[in-house]
């Protein structure tokens, strides 16, 4: 019968290996600066998990995930900024109690869409709902009209560009090109200390595993199989009685929510949010992380985000000009040679070797006990 367990053997190993790495090895071996960098890399893993569902499984390539990453990040940043802009903190401004960049831009009162972000629960809700709603509108507009493939990718890219221009242009409302900076406390808790960074790292890893489990759950339901079916035979799905558009909208919204959680964590880990994490280039980079890790593998996406960002940091520290070329070359190499990325290399080349090694060892030890030799598996 078809495997009915939540994780199969190799997925369980992947899950455990990742858990040991993120919960034990990295926190114990890295200093707080490096650990905070890892936390930053991991925020992209959330985007990657969403892309695995949406792109890997559903075949919907979005080159605009930075939009949702940014929306999540900005929602969090708005809350933190309001907390940092208390009347006491901003009494030197001409209008105390509003964020500093608003004051510089001659705003005299808080814009209406900032007001809900005084409340922490509303902010948490907004981080999930705002990007999902945005994705719903884009998805409904595109998928109901049967816009797909390359056209959809180009449109998402255009949306990423538009949102960046909007944020940069509306400086008084958004903080402009500098973004929202000088964030201090989360619900009264200082996020800038080493201790806070340590705690936030673990909060993020727990959330990441929550998202991995959620994505795995979706993948194993019939909806997950319909996504795969849709990727190859859209018409057959339609003529099996399903509304293809609705399933695409769902996958796109789910990917948006995952990206938004990553974005919100990014704001907390890094301490600011700016349009440079929203636009075309970061959106494409997010796709590259996923492609390198393996777009068909949830764990692959996490490894891709970690490894490519690690390479980015180390390479751009030593060769700042070369990094972008390196990233482009990596993407081309992966697409040409390993379409399923690192997880594909693992599944096709490394896993079979390990299995063979284990099998031969098992048969040797079994041969000593049972004359018949090892069982088939």
């Amino acid at each position: 019968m078809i495997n009915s367990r939540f994780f199969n053997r190799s997925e369980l190993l992947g899950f455990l290996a990742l858990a040991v790495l993120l919960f034990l090895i990295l926190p114990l071996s890295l200093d707080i600066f490096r650990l905070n960098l890892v936390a930053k890399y991991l925020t992209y893993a959330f985007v990657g998990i969403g892309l695995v569902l949406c792109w890997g499984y559903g075949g919907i390539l979005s080159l605009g995930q930075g939009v949702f990453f940014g929306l999540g990040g900005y929602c969090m940043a708005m809350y933190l900024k309001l907390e940092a802009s208390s009347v006491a903190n901003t009494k030197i401004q001409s209008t105390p109690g509003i964020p500093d960049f608003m004051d510089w831009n001659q705003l005299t009162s808080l814009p209406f869409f900032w007001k809900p972000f005084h409340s922490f629960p509303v902010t948490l809700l907004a981080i999930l709902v705002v990007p999902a709603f945005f994705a719903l509108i884009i998805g409904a507009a595109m998928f109901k009209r049967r816009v797909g493939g390359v056209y959809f990718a180009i449109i998402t890219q255009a949306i990423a560009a538009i949102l960046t221009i909007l944020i940069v242009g509306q400086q008084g409302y958004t903080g402009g090109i500098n973004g929202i900076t000088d964030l201090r406390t989360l619900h009264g808790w200082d996020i800038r200390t080493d201790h806070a960074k340590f705690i936030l790292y673990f909060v993020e890893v727990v959330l990441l595993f929550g998202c991995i489990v959620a994505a795995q759950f979706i993948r194993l339901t019939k909806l997950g199989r319909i996504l795969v079916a849709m990727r190859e035979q859209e018409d057959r799905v339609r003529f099996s009685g399903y509304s293809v558009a609705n399933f695409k909208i769902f996958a796109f919204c789910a990917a948006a929510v995952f990206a938004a959680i990553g974005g919100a964590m990014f704001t907390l880990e890094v301490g600011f949010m700016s349009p440079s994490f929203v636009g075309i280039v970061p959106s494409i980079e997010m796709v590259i992380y996923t492609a390198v890790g393996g777009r068909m593998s949830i764990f692959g996406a996490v490894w891709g985000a970690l490894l490519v960002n690690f390479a980015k940091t180390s390479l751009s520290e030593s060769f700042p000009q070369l990094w972008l070329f390196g990233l482009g070359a990596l993407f081309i190499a992966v697409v040409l040679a390993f379409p399923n990325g690192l997880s594909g290399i693992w599944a096709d080349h490394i896993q079979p070797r390990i299995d063979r090694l284990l099998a031969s060892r098992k048969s040797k030890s079994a041969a000593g006990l049972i004359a018949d030799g090892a069982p088939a598996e």
Partner: protein
Amino acid sequence: MLVGHQPKDFLLAVSGLTVSFDGFKAVNDLSFYVEENEIRVIIGPNGAGKTTVLDLICGKTRATSGSIQFRGQELTKLRENEIVQAGVGRKFQTPSVFEDLTVFENLEISFPRGRTVFGSLTFQRDDTVKQRVEEVAEMIFLKDRLNTYADQLSHGQKQWLEIGMLLIQDPDLLMLDEPVAGMSVSERAKTAELLNRIIKDRSVLVIEHDMKFVEDIAHKVTVLHQGQILSEGTMEHVKNDPKVIEVYLGH
């Protein structure tokens, strides 16, 4: 409404159906009626508009004018998935199955339950589903291939799988586009046997070129030519119609 009410309850009533692609009328003012439990075969030379007629009925192509009534429901206004839910199933000419899924999963997706987004998130593979899938798999000669990925099936097996996927939908009207094309002789015989079994209790609309096969199964034959009906009736009648002999059988 009594005016224009059909004297007889047809399952499918196509009337005045026209579709034009950039002025070219692929189907031109076509009218025909299919009764309950009738097996109708559509034949005609290449480009006669046979596949287009099926496309129009299942909603893949939108009609320019005319009406398609299915059990009194107007199909031209429904979306593809709504037409399926109304009880019309369609098999395509080239086998379209989900190659990255197993035979079991292919059939399960076609099982008519949990067709909404949230329905499919909460869908449970219970005994009803398993039994039905196994039952259908046995009918389509794939009982021992349930865990095989569909890309490893032969061309004929893929055709059967797609027929199975339609069967599990349990449609009232089954539309088959060249179901035996590209099959070996033995596969063809098995398919005829399969079709004869599944056409019970439902109406079937078949496009086929294989005349022997048509003679075997058809109750009534409709001959299309240039988007219009050239002749209609029993196979015997159609075969002896001079117009048909001229454009089709005579070649």
